[in-house]
């Protein structure tokens, strides 16, 4: 029996195969494989959008529900953004589209996993192609990024696996729904849960499991970094939320407290360490760490509105970060990476590009009329409803610190002088325009998205 709710995953899987075959058949330096990858990613995203959210538990392995669909939409958007940014440069290998589609499929599987076997498979399907992609540029920095990502990834997967083994040993099951009746946490179970949180925390890049992030983000090719910053973070956060808020809902007092401390630490450390950065990709990497802390606030507040806020926040964050990386892609041209000085005078030379980056940075800082404002508003609301004053105060303090991070590039753009000339490409232009539109649209009219997400992040239907 084929369940209609799984059609996006099937589309993505077929897309991987078709793209692989196309990459083999057509000659090098042809865009055919990119087009095919883009078509399948967009088709999977659109199908997720049009499906009516129902809830099926498929053999205890996966839950096909609205939550999975929201994750699908965000992950396919990240895949499409990565493909578009790599599109007409001809610098990336022909395997690029198939690999990034495969990673996207892994992320989608993490969104609907209902037991640890599938969660682990999804995580590895997401990670393995990304190790290759991170090292896909032929220079030393890319190789270094790939190696660091591989070593931390293998280590974190090992921690996650051992945590799963302990959870299995203390409960006799790996299916999340069987955990929902647990009231107490014995020692073995607690150790297992802690290791699972640490293992997923590495992928989500929360402090103190974040040290790989800046190097990997800086060294990887920009399209790959774009996918990592959005797609990987969405998948990891979605899996963590599903395990904790759904599986361990009744013992939230135990993990909520620990996660709250991690959240405050991550928000403050991420934004403080972003302050002195001069490399734009590194700056955004640290900002991604800080934003992982914001998402964690929603998860740690263990209320329904907190879970909704965490899922909602992923989209404003993702759109802003995709927009910022799109601008970097236009700026960097043939030479990867961009420094703060390259922005000098951008507001006079390339007003549209400067406007795009400004929207992205304002949204990341959480200024009203951008999507980031509503994201942070609902996170604070969720934290306060869970009576978590400490996290709400931490979020506000971190936001104030982050103003210093995000206003500095804007300052550079309005300076007089000659920076680096921009090199527009059609794909990058589409990404910048699309992400800017979504950021501003959600910032002005968030109700439809909010309704969609709020419905998806309510797990109570199973209890």
């Amino acid at each position, binding site marked *: 029996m084929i369940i209609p709710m799984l059609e996006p995953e099937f589309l993505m899987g077929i897309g991987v195969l078709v793209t692989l075959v196309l990459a083999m058949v057509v000659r090098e330096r042809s865009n055919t494989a990119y087009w095919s990858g883009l078509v399948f990613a967009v088709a999977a995203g659109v199908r997720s959008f049009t499906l009516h959210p129902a809830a099926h538990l498929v053999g205890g392995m996966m839950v096909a529900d609205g939550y999975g669909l929201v994750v699908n939409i965000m992950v396919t958007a990240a895949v499409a953004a990565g493909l578009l940014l790599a599109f007409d440069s001809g610098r990336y290998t022909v395997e690029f589209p198939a690999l990034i589609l495969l990673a996207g499929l892994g992320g989608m599987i993490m969104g609907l996993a209902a037991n*640890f*076997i599938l969660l*682990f*498979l999804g995580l*590895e399907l997401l990670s*393995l192609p990304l*190790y*290759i992609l991170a*090292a896909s540029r032929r220079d*030393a*920095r890319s*190789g*270094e*990024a*790939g*190696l*660091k990502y*591989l*070593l931390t990834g*293998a*280590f974190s*997967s*090992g*921690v996650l*696996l*051992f945590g*799963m*083994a*302990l959870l*299995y*040993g203390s409960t*006799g*099951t*790996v299916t999340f729904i069987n955990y929902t009746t647990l009231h107490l946490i014995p020692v073995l179970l607690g150790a297992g849960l802690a290791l699972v949180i640490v293992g997923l925390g590495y992928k989500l890049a929360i402090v103190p499991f974040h040290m790989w992030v*800046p*190097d990997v983000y*800086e*060294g990887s090719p920009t399209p790959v970094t774009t996918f990592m910053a959005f797609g990987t973070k969405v998948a990891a956060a979605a899996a963590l939320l599903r395990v904790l808020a759904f599986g361990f809902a009744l013992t939230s007092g135990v993990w909520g407290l620990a996660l709250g401390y991690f959240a405050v630490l991550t928000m403050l450390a991420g934004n403080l360490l972003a302050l*002195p*950065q*001069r*490399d734009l990709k*590194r700056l955004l990497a640290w900002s991604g760490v800080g934003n992982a802390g914001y998402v964690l606030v929603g998860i740690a507040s263990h209320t329904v509105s907190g879970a909704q806020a965490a899922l909602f926040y992923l989209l404003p964050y993702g759109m802003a970060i995709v927009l910022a990386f799109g601008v970097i892609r236009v700026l960097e041209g043939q030479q990867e990476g961009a420094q703060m000085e390259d922005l000098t005078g951008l507001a006079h030379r390339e007003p549209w590009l400067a406007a795009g980056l400004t929207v992205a940075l304002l949204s990341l800082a959480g200024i009203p009329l951008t999507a980031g404002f509503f994201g942070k508003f609902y996170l604070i609301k969720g934290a306060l409803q869970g009576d978590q004053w400490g996290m709400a105060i931490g979020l506000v303090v971190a936001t104030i610190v982050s103003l210093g991070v995000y206003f500095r590039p804007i300052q550079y753009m309005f300076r007089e002088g000659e920076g680096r000339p921009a090199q527009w490409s059609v794909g990058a232009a589409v990404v910048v325009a699309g992400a800017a539109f979504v950021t501003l649209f959600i910032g002005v009219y968030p109700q439809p998205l909010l309704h969609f997400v709020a419905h998806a992040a309510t797990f109570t239907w199973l209890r």
Partner: protein
Amino acid sequence: MPTPWIVGLAGAVFAVGAAGVMVRRNPLIMFMSAEMMWNAAALAFVAYAHQFHQMTGQVMAFVIVATAAAEVGIGLALIVWIYHRRPRLDVDEISEMKG
């Protein structure tokens, strides 16, 4: 053999692997240590599956072994590729990016 003994062994292997990743500086050894952590988890899964008379843990052990094989394929290729650029393998020397 009682399950706690086997899980204790798995825990020891896991600890050795984790210590190896943190202490050693050769990427090959670090990668091998990480694989040890995976295998410790697989051992714990099998021990518990035996105790519960279930197949779930056994299936998970096979999944772990298969995924580890895929990861080794990619990992070794990456490490060899980096080795071609610099003859001495040390992660402290592979650090062009700082800050």
